[in-house]
């Protein structure tokens, strides 16, 4: 049920962004500010509620991501050999994994601030990187870059690069390893197992 509500919200959100074109840097800024505002107020997330954080991510962040492309990139060459059913299973499991990881990272939020770097974008550009920086007292700023592509007049994130490490390419070798050992179904199985284990931890 919750997933359905999340999905409906996602559809709603994406139709909103279709209606009026938002520049990629404005999009990143709006979503980030909105999420930070909620984090600052939400006591449950601050005290480590992963469930609440997942809800926040599902509603506010997910609609702006292109998981199909992210998964295809992470899987690499084998993606084209995968059947449509395998592809959607992979995308679904990868999505769950990333959402949980990202949500958990949000529960660690203390009082960091986000700086948005100015975006240099040529007219008609359809692929850009929006750079942001997380600043926290007494530590080096951490860069978070969002790679976005334009599709049907709306911008979608297809990679997040945290401290120079790409969320997507970090999985490439692991995925290739799994596929090499047990094929695409083997990879789907181990992603499912990983997600099950993660859910069990989140519940306690």
């Amino acid at each position: 049920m919750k997933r359905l509500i999340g999905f409906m919200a996602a559809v709603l959100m994406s139709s909103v962004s279709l209606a009026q074109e938002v520049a990629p840097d404005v999009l990143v800024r709006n979503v980030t500010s909105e999420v930070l505002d909620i984090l600052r107020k939400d006591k449950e997330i601050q005290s480590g509620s992963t469930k609440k954080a997942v809800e926040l991510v599902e509603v506010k962040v997910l609609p702006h991501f292109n998981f199909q492309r992210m998964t295809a990139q992470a899987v690499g060459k084998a993606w084209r050999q995968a059947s449509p059913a395998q592809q959607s299973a992979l995308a679904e499991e990868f999505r769950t994994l990333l959402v949980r990881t990202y949500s958990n990272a949000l529960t660690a939020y203390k009082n960091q601030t986000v700086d948005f770097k100015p975006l240099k974008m040529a007219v008609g550009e359809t692929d850009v990187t929006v750079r942001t920086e997380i600043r926290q007292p007494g530590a080096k700023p951490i860069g978070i870059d969002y790679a976005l592509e334009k599709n049907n007049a709306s911008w979608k994130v297809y990679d997040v690069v945290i401290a120079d490490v790409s969320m997507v390419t970090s999985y490439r070798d692991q995925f290739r390893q799994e596929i090499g050992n047990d094929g695409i179904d083997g990879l789907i199985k181990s992603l499912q197992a990983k997600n099950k284990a993660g859910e069990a931890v989140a519940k306690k």
Partner: protein
Amino acid sequence: MIVARMHVRIVLALVIAGLLGGCASSGNPRDPVEGFNRAMFAFNDGLDKAVIKPVARGYEATLPVTARNGVANFFGNIADVFIGVNNALQGKMPEAINDFGRVMVNTTLGVFGFMDVASDLGVDKHDEDFGQTFGRWGSPTGAYLVLPVFGPRNVRDTAGLAFDLAADPVGNVESVASRNVLVATRLISDRAALLPADKVIEEAALDKYSYIRDAYLQRRRNLVYDGAAPRLPDNDE
């Protein structure tokens, strides 16, 4: 200096041991000594779980955040000297001047580096070391290597590490006792700063070893380009 030379010898011995071992490899061209690396990774992970992480947790629980930041800043200030030297060696003079300026400001206004006043003033910290300098000079990265205690490196960064250690003011403190205290404190301070990342890695990784290897290789590549590395093609081999 003696410590550094010893490290170099240990590192070399291990590299040779790894190569002679003719280790099993899953065929990843960037990781030809994967068998050796995985064994070393397991050793480091065990050491971390048994000793380093619990101490870092205790350190985090005992010291208030201001004190921990002070310690991190103190070692950061010492490191800034060599970050400046490396920027100079790479011909990046404005950056080098920025780094030396940071040291001057933080050593004086920041009371021996315990406060990072320079960052508050907008003079940002950089991240440089000899491995990156060699990279700038065009040295190839070489194979991925996991060193005992020091963790992930590649051949180039292992050579860089030997220079980093030789030049490290903390490792060259005359008195053995104070040197040991300083080196240990820095290790724990660095580890404590990484504690929040543990949970994320445990959750995100299908295979922790591969995950850390790929993160390391990507990060080093980007550092050499100072964060402006060209994006790898979507379907690279």
